């Protein structure tokens, strides 16, 4: 073989070999993220994903401190005026003028199902790993089920019949197949089943100070009692007596496990005292905020504060704050201890109205940025 012809064949050979390494070459995965399908390998992975479910509760579009728009403002208690900077969408909630296109409503709906989705992933993923102690798996699953039930309870009360999803949906076909409204009786049945697993689990009755914010058995009982109460008043009245009896059972269970004597022994202000949030025995379930932290603090105290006021927060605030309707102001009877703690009249010229004051954090740690630690839920 001559020199030139060997170069000729070498060239062709190079072309061919380079062409044949194609399949692996085109497989690229995200270096910054692990595939969901490969995530669950140890029990700690389950715990961290369970924390992810708790994290979902912090979403202000869901049931965290921004959710007053979907509940409290829907009542006659608080609201907002239809001024221009609020014009249109949020205002539709308290005006009972919700249009289907309302984006806040859609965001709320999405957030609730995001929380459920995370719980479903944990429940499925927790089956795939081995545990040092057999109770651990059941406890993690009980926590996820409590949160799933809590959110379905929100959905079923706000929308009635809603899609009922209890496992991860990983393809669009699965999503399509599950996108239909399930009868609310079935949704309630799922909520009751989940909460029954919680109260039969080995979770502690109440959480230690270091674990506040996690689900306890008392929380399971209390929520199940509330669920039965709601079922008694909104579902088939033939079952009313039975549902009320169940409600009594579980609420009594919760109350009998209390760590205090009578409710009146706990001053009203203590319930909202940020320095007592881990020790207040009345709190059943809470979302914990970290005082002074830019990311994990609460801003509800500062957000509610009207212009010119300092009672909620050291933050200088503008606007009307968390507006209280005249209806609620009049509802307080004379001498009601709660009135002066909960609402206040702001005299600034752009306000001249009542605002919410029961959430307060004027500590220097929360500071002028309003990074409070107020208790949610």
């Amino acid at each position: 073989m001559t020199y030139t012809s060997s170069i000729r064949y070498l060239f062709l050979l190079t072309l061919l070999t380079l062409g044949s390494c194609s399949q692996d070459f085109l497989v690229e995965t995200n270096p910054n993220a692990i595939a969901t399908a490969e995530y669950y390998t140890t029990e700690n992975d389950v715990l961290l994903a369970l924390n992810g479910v708790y994290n979902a509760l912090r979403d202000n579009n869901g049931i965290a401190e921004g959710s007053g728009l979907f509940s409290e403002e829907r009542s006659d208690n608080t609201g907002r005026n239809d001024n221009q900077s609020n014009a249109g969408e949020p205002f539709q909630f308290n005006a009972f003028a919700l249009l289907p296109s309302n984006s806040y409503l859609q965001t709320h709906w999405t957030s609730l199902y995001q929380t459920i989705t995370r719980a479903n992933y944990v429940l499925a993923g927790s089956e795939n790993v081995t545990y040092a102690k057999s109770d651990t798996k059941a406890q993690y699953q009980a926590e996820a089920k409590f949160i799933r039930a809590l959110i379905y309870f929100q959905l079923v009360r706000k929308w009635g019949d809603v899609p009922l999803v209890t496992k991860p949906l990983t393809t669009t076909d699965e999503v399509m197949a599950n996108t239909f409204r399930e009868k609310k009786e079935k949704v309630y049945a799922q909520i009751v089943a989940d909460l029954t697993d919680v109260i039969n689990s080995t979770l502690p009755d109440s959480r230690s100070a270091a674990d506040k914010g996690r689900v306890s058995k008392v929380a399971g009982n209390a929520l199940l009692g509330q669920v039965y109460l709601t079922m008694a008043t909104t579902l088939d009245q033939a079952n009313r007596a039975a549902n009320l009896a169940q409600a009594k059972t579980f609420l009594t269970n919760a109350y009998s496990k209390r760590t205090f004597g009578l409710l009146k022994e706990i001053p009203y202000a203590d319930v909202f005292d940020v320095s007592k949030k881990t020790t207040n025995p009345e709190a059943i379930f809470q979302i914990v905020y970290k005082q002074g932290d830019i990311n994990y603090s609460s801003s509800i105290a500062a957000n509610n504060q009207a212009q010119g006021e300092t009672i909620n927060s050291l933050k200088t605030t503008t606007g009307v704050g968390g507006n209280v309707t005249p209806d609620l102001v009049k509802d307080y009877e004379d001498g009601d201890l709660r009135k002066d703690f909960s609402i206040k009249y702001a005299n600034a010229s752009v306000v001249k109205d009542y605002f919410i004051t029961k959430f307060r954090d004027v500590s220097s740690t929360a500071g002028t940025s309003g990074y409070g630690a107020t208790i949610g839920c």
Partner: protein
Amino acid sequence: MQEGRFNQGPILGALIYAPIFRARDENGNLVKNEMAAQQPVYGYQTIENPVAVAEETNITRKGLRGTFNGTASYEIIPGLVAKANLGLQTYNEKYEYYLPTSLSSGNNPPYSPQAIAAATASALTLSTQNLLAEFTATYAKQFGKHRLNGLVGYTVQKTNLDQISVSAQGFQTNAVQEITAKGADPTNFFLNLPSTAGSGVPNTTTSLATSSIGFTGTGKQEETLLSYLARAEYNYDDRYYLTAAFRTDGSSRFGPLNRWGNFPSLSAGWTISNEPFYADWLGAASTLKLRGSWGLTGNYNVGNYNYLQTMNSPTGAVFGSGTIQTAFYSGPIKDQKLGWESTSQYNLGLDVGLFNNRLLLIANAYLSDSYNLLFNQPISAISGTTSILTNLRNSKIRNKGIEFQIDGRAVSTQDFKLNLSGNISLNRNKVLNMGGANTILVAGAERSYITHITQEGQPVGMFYGFKVIGMVRQKDVDNLAADNAVYNAATQSFPTGYVLKGPARSTASTNPLRPGDLIFQDVNGDGVVNDADKQVIGSPYPKFTYGFSVNASYKAFDANASFNGVYGSQVLDGQDYYLFNMEGSGNQYSVVADRYRSEDQPGNGQVFRASRGGTQSNSTRLSTFYLQNGSYLRCTNITLGYNLPASVLTKVRVSGLRLYANVNNAFTFTKYKGYNPEVDYNNGANLAPGVDYGKYPLARGYNIGARITF
């Protein structure tokens, strides 16, 4: 400089900052916090002096690009050439941002605790490498009047990206505007992550810092592209041309099931003027050529890793008295079948050269259909997300259009030359089949109200809302009262069969209709205006676009001017949310003076009444009121030049010296009230075109220069 809302950038701020406030005092110092400080009393928008924002916010971006290439070719047998080309392109960037303590934060003055807390420095470094290897073999052969060219080859491409973006806070002074001057608290320094919706943590750790390639936050990416290609060209006697090509591309952006796409194409040309029978049919030395082609092309313009569901970057949950524990959760579901979008396009063209090619005419017509559209399809929220990037199977979007171009050397003498050219193009876009997807509604401006619709039978991304059909006047008041008497406010409806006497009311506001409010068209005639009465109210697409230029030279002087324009498009001016709010919180368009005030002062009949509270006309109820004519004619460039005569040049020993002056974007004729009718707040998001919102205006540039050749 940043764009968007006035708390981010000075552009919208400059529009809304009330003109009664000063930019500088009599000593030339910037005046700050003047308008914002009076927010508590008058309810002004809390806007900082936009001049101060522009001057004191410090933003720099430095890029360094490197290109390295090596080529080798080898003729294996006569006519057959093998060629290898290896290339490496690198791009490194440093972006820095500093928001000082010396600007207001909301209505809090400079250097207040709030302004100090808001001060932020961001630093972003980006490094990219793009490796490309091309291996081709070409073969050329001529026998008689036949000419044949062939090419086969393949190309391999690998692109890496590595970006780190961090931010620092806690700045006490502005002496050092670097991330190193951060405060002591650990939370004063943080990594910027790509934004993830619904993370349950406020958005403080998501910086606006984006590298110029469009990647936000911190992370690495790698992608690969592999292509095989073949092409054959045949030409007979410079009369008949035929080309056939085929390529197959594989991209790492797509899922394992559809990584590869096949893209054939065919084209043919016929130079009629080279035929014996042509015989200078269009005059002496004229040319005439007919072209036609069909081809399939692929689109893979989507982000990386969109086929694989992954866990999101860890976030946190808080327990006990404030212990933050790491939290993981799965990112949204992905489509494993994700693959190429393809477009099939037919082209037909005619090239004519007349009068010895002094007049050239080019005509082109095309018809293209796009299939398997890559699209963020809305998906039921029960999936845990709101959309999924997928190919819309059976979807079809059609573009068809015609283009004409004419170039003429009008005068061509020794001393004086004049060249004129012009072009016009028309494009029509239509969604023929959504592939099973629902109508898509998109919120394309601020405040998340819906602005655009994409549906079958219409172009992509049309403006969507209420149609204004008039204004409520005093004469309507009695009729409105009569309607009110039978209106059921609880169900927001009228009894069946009731014939409305006055104008229809909007259910989106509880404030009743009053004289001076806009009347929206009640499309379904049920007496109330709600979501069911929204319709396509305008188009962001021009009826046609055009351009022309003039080139003239006389002896050593030359001048040229270029123009372009569009006709028939509309712009949604999102800034109207403020500039037409008539609540006394900021500057307004001057036409607001011509609003409805009373029956004696009804204004121009279009601008609705002023109100501090909400009315039925406000901008979150998007209507035709907020659409403006986007037609314009712009002079993009004027250049004047002078070439020094050769007699002078020889003395100074240079072979050429040209002096010139030019101006870019010299002037624009338009009725649009904002800065620039050619605007796209959503930066190319094709479902929400034609929105203006605090976008940086086009700069007018003046250049004076000299070009010397030795």
